[in-house]
């Protein structure tokens, strides 16, 4: 971002989320970078949802459900906690939650990067389809359920049933995993994965501070890819 970036202030105590989103949607995909500072979010829903322009939105406080939902291109920074489904179905761009995130963070997201400084609740990365999620704290139960593609990197611990019914997403956890879900197994952490982890640390802005070797890798055993009677209880 250069020094001449255009800055806009938006106060959600005075104007509605609808007005904010309408203004952000009016920016065209090819428009110049600009910075939007959003005050008084107070847990309101759908803040900065559906963006498709290279803007930066700083949300100064806790956001409600679906903040930065379906994001494309934009950088959305939440200076507080984020509610259910932050960056759900994100396509591209960068979403950074400085506090904790609630359930279903990054659900079904296809691309882009989601960084959560605190903990993420249950179902983090559920049905993820290509997003890179980095959680500096821990994640709740049923995270990466049916995760299809992308990476989920967790510095802390994972709750019950991690990666249940997982497809091809790659999961990296540094701490403990309470239990693995159906068809999710630990896999060898090879150099290519250490390299990938290093790349994720760079995305999270902490490259060089953590040793990728401290992480363990989890992924699909692929036993459920073709129905077999002896696996019936796992479906």
């Amino acid at each position, binding site marked *: 971002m250069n020094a001449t970036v255009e800055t806009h202030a938006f106060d959600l105590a005075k104007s509605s989320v609808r007005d904010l989103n309408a203004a952000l949607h009016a920016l065209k995909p090819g428009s110049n970078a600009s910075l939007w500072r959003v005050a008084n979010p107070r*847990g309101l829903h759908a803040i900065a949802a559906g963006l498709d322009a290279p803007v930066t939105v700083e949300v100064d406080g806790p956001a409600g*459900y679906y903040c930065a939902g379906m994001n494309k291109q934009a950088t959305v920074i939440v200076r507080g*906690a984020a*509610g259910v489904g932050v960056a759900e179905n994100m396509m591209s761009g960068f979403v950074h939650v400085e*506090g904790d995130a*609630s359930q279903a963070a990054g659900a079904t997201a296809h691309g882009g990067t989601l960084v959560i400084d605190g903990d993420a609740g*249950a179902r983090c990365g559920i049905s993820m389809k290509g997003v890179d999620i980095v959680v500096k704290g821990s994640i709740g139960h049923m995270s990466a359920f049916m995760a299809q593609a992308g990476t989920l990197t967790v510095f802390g611990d994972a709750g019950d049933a991690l990666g249940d019914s997982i497809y091809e997403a790659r999961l990296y956890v540094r701490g403990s995993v309470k239990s693995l879900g159906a068809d999710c197994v630990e896999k060898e952490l090879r150099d290519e994965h250490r390299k990938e982890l290093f790349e994720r640390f760079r995305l999270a802005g902490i490259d060089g501070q953590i040793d990728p070797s401290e992480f363990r890798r989890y992924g699909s055993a692929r036993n459920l890819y073709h129905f077999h009677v002896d696996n019936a209880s796992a479906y």
Partner: protein
Amino acid sequence: MCGIVGLFLKDPSLEPKLGEMLGQMLGVMCDRGPDSAGFAVYGGGAPGKIKLTLRAPAGYDFAPVGAALGDGAELETRATHAVLTIADSREAEARDTIAKQFKDVTVVGAGQRMELYKEVGLPSDVATSFKLSGMSGTHGIGHTRMATESAVTTNGAHPFSTGADQCLVHNGSLSNHRSVRRDLERAGFSVNTDNDSEVAAGYLSWRMKEGRSLGEALEDSLDDLDGFYTFVVGTETGFGVIRDPIACKPAVMAETDQYVAFGSEYRALAGLPGIETAKVWEPEPAKVYFWDRAA
């Protein structure tokens, strides 16, 4: 399917503001439950006395109820509700008198300290009609309701109270409440509405009557109640929270040196003093959280 809020004060200096804080939390949750609202407040109470919260149709004159019970009965009316305070030894007599002489009056809650108000309508309007903002107390819970399978009536509104100083609010949907209802009825507990949440309240009262503590009763509910639920419950001295093992329904808690607060969403907590620096977290599935003043 609803919004729920709860507030448990640790700092006595906030007690005069309990109603104001709870009312503000309830108002924010209007969107989650526009059909009806209710709240229970644990305020003043005297040993040896019991407070019965009565409800009647709009415009009802409660004065004859107090008069019928003679000396020592105090009555305070708030819109469609009134709180009758009498010696606790006279509870059965009072209930009998009301049932026989005042057909339009229903006892919605009873306890040494609990008062319970609920009505159909937009939650913020309901809170205003009962002058919640002026109430003081140590803790309280509230509810805004989006009715799922039972009628939008005052009886169907939360909280549900099925035991002295006990009440419950619920967000979710129980899938086996008809069976549990039959078990309760066999055990001698009557369930008055079609509402699954009343079954949950009755279940906890039943377990506690069987000698379980509130915390243990909540643990039991994990085995016996099926479906999706977040419960917030109040007792004379305590305040508890539990979520089902799948935990799809939202729940956020905040704790400071001054209070513990619960909201279905963070929005409900956003107006509380010191929330910026509070410890804010989501209760874990199948885990009992409980705060008790007596402890």
